[in-house]
């Protein structure tokens, strides 16, 4: 093999000096985690509301919920990213004014977070709907029989059960979200994959840089898996589903 590996490249300084390559990757990791965390909150909020709407008796609300899911599910995430970054500010003049004045990284962060948050909300809405619909019909009827309003029925009976059931699919959606943050590099956000490629281009140590990023992504995936498994165990309903023993 004509390739020699040099892992000490991470301890070298960038050409501008003062910053090491490992620090450059780390700064990318913070952007990745920051975008993932903020868009996760958006996704959970919207996803829960939209998913719930899709299980109500109102035809209008069900239609709107379905339309939301289909809209975000049938356009490639990359194209959605372009729409949020290039197109939406043009259509909203005040936003455009802010984008022009703001630092590029702030505008990129906002676009990427909104894009990933709403994209993932459609996927979470699908899981929430499935979770609510998997509950026995009797739960809904019992809630109505003891005089709960629709809001109370969802708040105290259906959603607490549904969320526990859908923790495993929510785990994989969370992992998808973290992986999808890498698509933000197409609008110039300097997240982990962006920095990894940049490091490769500066040093020609692509193999070392990509390996480091791969290991970091695996570590993130494993951590997210563990955290969600812990939540699943903590919130399991005794004697129900595959949960507590």
């Amino acid at each position, binding site marked *: *093999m*004509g*390739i020699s590996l040099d892992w000490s490249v991470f301890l070298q300084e960038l050409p501008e000096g003062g910053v090491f390559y490992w620090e450059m990757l780390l700064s990318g990791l913070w952007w990745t985690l920051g975008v993932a965390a903020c868009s996760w909150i958006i996704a959970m909020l919207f996803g829960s509301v939209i998913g719930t709407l899709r299980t109500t008796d109102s035809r209008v609300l069900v239609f709107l919920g379905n339309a939301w899911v*289909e*809209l975000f*599910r*049938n*356009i*490639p*995430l*990359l*194209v*959605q990213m*372009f*729409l949020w970054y*290039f*197109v939406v500010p*043009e*259509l909203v003049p005040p936003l455009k004014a802010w984008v022009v004045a703001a630092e590029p990284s702030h505008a990129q962060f906002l676009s990427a977070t909104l894009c990933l948050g709403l994209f993932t909300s459609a996927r979470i809405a699908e899981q929430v709907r499935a979770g609510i619909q998997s509950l026995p019909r009797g739960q809904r009827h019992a809630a109505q029989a003891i005089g709960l309003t629709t809001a109370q029925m969802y708040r105290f009976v259906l959603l607490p059960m549904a969320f526990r059931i859908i923790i495993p699919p929510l785990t994989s959606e969370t*992992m998808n979200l973290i*992986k*999808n*943050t*890498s*698509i933000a*590099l*197409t609008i110039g956000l300097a997240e982990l*994959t962006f920095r*990894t*490629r940049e490091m*490769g281009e500066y040093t020609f140590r*692509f*193999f070392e840089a*990509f390996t480091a*990023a*791969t290991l970091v*992504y*695996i570590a993130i*995936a*494993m951590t997210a898996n563990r955290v969600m498994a812990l939540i699943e165990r903590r919130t399991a309903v005794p004697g129900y589903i595959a949960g507590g023993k």
Partner: protein
Amino acid sequence: MDFDWSVIGGALPYLWKGMQYTLELTAIAALGGLFFGTLLALARLSPIKPLSMFAAGYVNLMRSIPLVLVIFWFFFLVPVILQVAMGYERPPQVGAERTAIITFIMFEAAYFCEIMRAGIQSIPRGQIHAAQALGLNYSQTMRLVVLPQAFRNMIPVLLTQTIILFQDTSLVYVISATDFVGAAAKIAQRDGRLIEMYVFVAIVYFIICFTLSLAVRQLQRKIAVIR
């Protein structure tokens, strides 16, 4: 705000070329991914420990890193591997379009593997026992009894995954391949008409994917009735 939708009319031949590449990439990656994915699934389910561990490791690796990073990996690795394998003096120029095909086959194989594994595991054990009782060997059991049923059960999921693949191929943009999005981006930047181009691209993808997903749902209902 002034929109000029006429830029799309002039760009249509170039966009169509991009779309042809997108469709070609989707078709080859789906078929190749299904083929290697099925092999991986058989490996994962095999009683030979090293084989199943290798397959599981490959699938988990592919599934835990972002597709963009996978694309960068292969864009870097394919020429290097070819150089070593063929004994060239310098890495050959493979080109983004051809690299993307290899990348997507390898990446999709991991996802199709999980689908086929679920499909194979959904077949009642009695089927395998019956095949063995008839005197079929392993490859005959798989080829004639298990896999045809697994494919059939998994057709809706396989098609849904292919729709996702169709959308994911847009990411070849990151290595500057000229797929549908790549073609649109190039023209958008040349003419300074980003809004019209990207909105048009979004509408085209939406119409195709929404129609296909409705068709898959229809098919799912049909298959469910027969069973």
